[in-house]
């Protein structure tokens, strides 16, 4: 278990001091695939480097199973990193790279060789063992970097956007591969990415970061379906934001009234919900097109965009807001709507999410 307790990191260099981490607290569980997600410059890599030991926190504590990490230099932390650029040693072979950490730990030669062979097998690189790292492809380098970091059996593996340099197809394969390695080795993974899809498909839990702060922590489904605030809703997936009147809050539920005068059951934010003007988030695929009569939202169809798997409907609501709606396509479906039609939007009960302001 890794506990990050009120960690602040301020960089002072030329120019104004920069607060890369602002009072960040998070507990990462044993054997968890934990993702730090956020736009570039949000502090996710800095947090990773603080855990690895390359940066000392300005304030706060980092503990691993109750033991203080901050006091330890990087080479004494049972934590390994897969670097964004892989940082493979160019003067060593694939096998030498993988064995490096074990050698530095002064493990016996026979054990090093055995572990290296296991690791080569684990990442399916046995044939490449004696190649130089410059002689293998990007995807293979990625796997060597993984094997090198896993070989010493760290308690925690840190991954700094390790898939960003790979092409789309390879990235998909590696996502599955990473998940497999994590469950096979039982090591806690802390994964840094700016790719929301990557985060959603691989993580047990996600921390969404912005401007040095963690904005929301939760499972992928939680984060996607119930974003806590506008930044999270906007950063992950597409969202329609509507200004509505919050009339009542009962536990997790809330009643809001649209400009159209219709009321709807939605989800309340976890805390701090007050009646009055609030922002409601509705995912495009959670709503559907319907007849204008009796619908909670009504408007005019502005544009229809065909995407293969689904079709996007751009609607201008009567109140003036724009609303995008996504419907799954069926085989040989004929388009029943046309641009300019008056349409209604159906939003199921408890799907909309009221955001914390």
């Amino acid at each position, binding site marked *: 278990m890794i506990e990050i307790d009120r960690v602040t990191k301020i960089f002072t260099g030329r120019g104004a001091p920069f607060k890369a981490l602002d009072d960040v607290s998070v507990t990462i569980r044993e054997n968890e695939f934990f993702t730090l997600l956020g736009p570039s410059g949000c502090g996710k890599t800095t947090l990773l480097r603080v855990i690895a030991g*390359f940066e000392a926190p300005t304030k706060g504590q980092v503990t691993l199973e109750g033991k203080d990490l901050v006091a330890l230099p990087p*080479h004494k932390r049972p934590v390994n*990193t897969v670097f964004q650029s892989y940082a*493979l*040693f160019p003067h060593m*072979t694939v096998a*030498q790279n993988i*064995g490096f950490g074990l050698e530095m730990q002064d493990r016996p030669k026979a054990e090093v060789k055995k572990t*290296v062979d296991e690791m080569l097998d684990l990442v399916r690189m046995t044939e490449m063992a004696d190649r130089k790292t410059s002689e293998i492809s990007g995807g293979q380098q990625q796997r060597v970097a993984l094997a090198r*970091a896993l070989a010493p059996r760290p308690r925690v593996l840190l991954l700094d956007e390790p898939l960003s340099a790979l092409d789309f197809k390879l990235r998909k394969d590696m996502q599955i591969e990473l998940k497999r390695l994590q469950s096979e080795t039982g090591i806690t993974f802390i994964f840094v990415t700016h790719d929301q899809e990557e985060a959603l498909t691989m993580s047990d839990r996600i921390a969404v970061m912005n401007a040095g702060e963690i904005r929301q922590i939760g499972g992928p489904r939680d984060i996607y379906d119930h974003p806590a605030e506008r930044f999270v809703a906007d950063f992950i997936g597409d969202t329609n934001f509507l200004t509505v009147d919050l009339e009542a809050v009962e536990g997790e539920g809330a009643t809001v009234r649209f400009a159209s005068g219709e009321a709807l059951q939605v989800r309340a934010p976890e805390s701090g919900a007050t009646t009055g003007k609030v922002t409601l988030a509705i995912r495009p695929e959670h709503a559907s097109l319907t007849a204008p009569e009796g619908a909670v939202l009504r408007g005019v169809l502005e544009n229809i965009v065909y995407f293969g798997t689904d079709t996007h409907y751009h609607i201008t609501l009567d109140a003036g807001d724009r609303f995008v709606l996504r419907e799954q396509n069926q085989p040989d479906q004929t388009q029943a709507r046309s641009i300019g039609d008056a349409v209604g939007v159906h939003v199921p009960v408890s799907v909309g999410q009221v955001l914390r302001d």
Partner: protein
Amino acid sequence: MSEAVSFQKRAARRRWFLLTPALVVLLLAASGPLLIVVIYSFLTPGDYGGVVWEFSPNAWFSVVLERDFFTEQLGFADAHLSILWRSVKLSLMTAALTFALGFPTAYFIATRPAHKRDFWMLLIMIPFWTNLLIRTFAIMELIRAEGTVNSFLLWTGVINEPIQMLFTEFAILLGMSYVYLPLMVLPIYASMERFDFSLVEAGYDLYGSRWRVLRRVIFPLVKPGVIAGSILVFVPSLGAYVAPRVLGGGKQLMLGNLIELQFGAGRNWPVGAALSLTLLLIVTVALMFYVRAAGNEEGPGHG
């Protein structure tokens, strides 16, 4: 077909034509003088310098051998051999000392922020713009009996009488190291600047201590720079003239001084030529060994 052939021929001829300046320079500036030196080394010395066009292997004999003045018995030329040995020894020590000083210096500069590195490099380069003699005399001023260092030590009471530093091998070593330090720093810095410092982080991350990361990751990757620097320092040190002359005080001769002596006061050009070629030979052999040894050090192997 024939047209294509003649075109190729013409192209080849034009290439040779364009190479002419380089060939002329190579012939006149490199091979030519060297050939003259080789020929001179096999001739008889003239009475007032120069050579007499008469074949004689004597010059080559006297590089390492000498005939006893009285008994006419052949023996090793102790004076020449000791000078030869001193040259090689001091040059190796100079290369070692400049490496010991230059490597940390280059590392320091390469790890500064990019915009500050030029400033530090400038500091390394500035002494290089000053005349060699001036710099050597500056060292002399520092270490002579009434010089800065001795005066300071006497004043603080660390010593009671001045330390004899000038006119020793130490003085020559100090002078050459000072003069040739930039030649070591520059190539090491050049290879360190290209060095990816995330590899150092990877080394630390994989349980490498600072020393082991330096030895296993940084050093092997900047080794080409270290080799280049060592060669750049070793070669001119071997033939150094000014430092041993000024700081060795004519007592601690090196090859450069010996050669000068043969062409000057000794009036024995063939011996001078033979000694020059000996120097060339030592450098060539040393470089061959060094480059081969350095290249094999980090051989392939498993785990």
